């Protein structure tokens, strides 16, 4: 039995008071909030795409939320939040100007350095596009550092698509291919229908020179990995964002333990090679 690494004692980052600078509704239950430092207080910390923060709504609770943008502009954080419980409901219904506590950033980031000079394929499902948005923005901001960018995005229905305007903007850029699909649609939808893995039929990959970044429901990620394997993309070039049951963000509470890892501390972005033994386990 392999030893489980013991979390090193660490002081949690100081909570910073932020203000809601903007809020936009993405879908029926999902909103994108832009936060900026409140008044003369400390600035919001720098972060790397893929990391997350603990956001605190006064008197309601704290929750881990992936940072989905802001790194390119600096000074602001963007969070896309789905209302699924008391704390997220309160957060997405914050008024403009409302105060929110921010601790972080926590966790690992997407391998943007490793991907330099290579093609990048991003595969996202549902709200899984949110943690990848910052990485896509970074790649587009430093366009000459990367090769071809392919974004494959699947959602439940056309109404559930995030960042519609941005998806269209990304797709118009050179050396960028954005393919979107939904699981179900009515007759007004002119786009693709089918699960996200069906989009692989329409892309050509250079397997030796591609880095894959995936985020979505775990079953979806497993099938995406299989499609990449069929196209000979090496396991070592595949990265996943796991977002299981994170609570404390410090690896203390154990809620997010996955085999020998704590997702909040050792992840949420993992090389697939580390996740391979654990992805299809019913309990790990």
């Amino acid at each position, binding site marked *: 039995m392999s030893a489980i690494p013991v979390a090193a004692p660490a002081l949690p980052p100081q909570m910073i008071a932020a203000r809601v600078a903007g809020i936009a509704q993405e879908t029926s*239950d999902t909103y994108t909030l832009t936060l900026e430092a409140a008044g003369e207080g400390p600035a919001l910390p720098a972060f790397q795409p893929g990391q997350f923060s603990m956001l605190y709504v006064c008197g309601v609770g704290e929750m881990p939320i992936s940072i989905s943008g802001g790194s390119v502009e600096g000074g602001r954080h963007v969070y896309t939040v*789905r209302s*699924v419980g008391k704390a997220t409901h309160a957060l997405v219904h914050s008024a403009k100007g409302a105060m929110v506590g921010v601790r972080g950033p926590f966790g690992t980031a997407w391998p943007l350095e490793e991907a330099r000079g290579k093609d990048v394929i991003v595969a996202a*499902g*549902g*709200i899984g596009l949110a943690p990848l948005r910052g990485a896509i923005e970074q790649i587009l901001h430093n366009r000459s550092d990367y090769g071809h960018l392919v974004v494959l995005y*699947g*959602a*439940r229905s056309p109404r*559930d698509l995030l960042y519609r305007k941005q998806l269209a903007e990304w797709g118009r850029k050179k050396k960028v291919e954005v393919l979107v*699909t939904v*699981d*179900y*649609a*009515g*007759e007004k*939808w*002119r*786009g*693709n*229908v*089918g*699960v996200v*893995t*069906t989009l692989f*039929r*329409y892309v050509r990959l250079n397997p030796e020179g591609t880095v894959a970044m995936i985020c*979505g*429901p775990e*079953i*979806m990620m497993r*099938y995406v990995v299989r499609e990449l394997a069929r196209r000979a993309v090496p396991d070592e070039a595949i990265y996943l964002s796991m977002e299981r049951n994170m609570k404390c963000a410090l690896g203390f509470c154990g809620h997010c333990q996955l085999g020998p890892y704590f997702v909040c501390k050792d992840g949420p972005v993992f090389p697939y090679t580390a996740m391979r033994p654990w992805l299809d386990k019913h309990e790990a």
Partner: protein
Amino acid sequence: METKALIEALRGSQFLEGLKQNHIQKIAEMAMEVQFSRDQIIFREGDECGLFYLLLSGKVALEISAPGRIVRVQTVGEGDELGWSSLLAGDGKQFQARSLEPVRALVFDGTRLRQACEEDPAFGYNLMLRIVKVVSRRLQATRLQLLDLYAPRGVKLV
């Protein structure tokens, strides 16, 4: 489309990838190019249409009618096949196919293809192997769709 261009198009098809030259030739002899304009119904649910298509360009939606609405269950595009059930004698079409964009395709008579399979079992085996792969891939995709992976957590199956 000239025979040479036809053979090139068939060679480039993912569906026929790896098929021997003589088998490609055999298929080419049965192919005819067709075009559909946007929003054209290619076949309807229940049709006894015995045609099989390989799409060269454009996008086609497979739809099912429900009271007062049409549900799109899948789209197929360049390099995909459409109407595989025409290779199996019997039932009519399960879905309606509608072109979402202008479509170019190669069309085959399912009965003629089946006859060719019976006359040349090696050809038939290779063609049916590809059909089974298509059916398997679509079955897997349908199962994933049924899982409703993007539903909010807490929505439980009974």
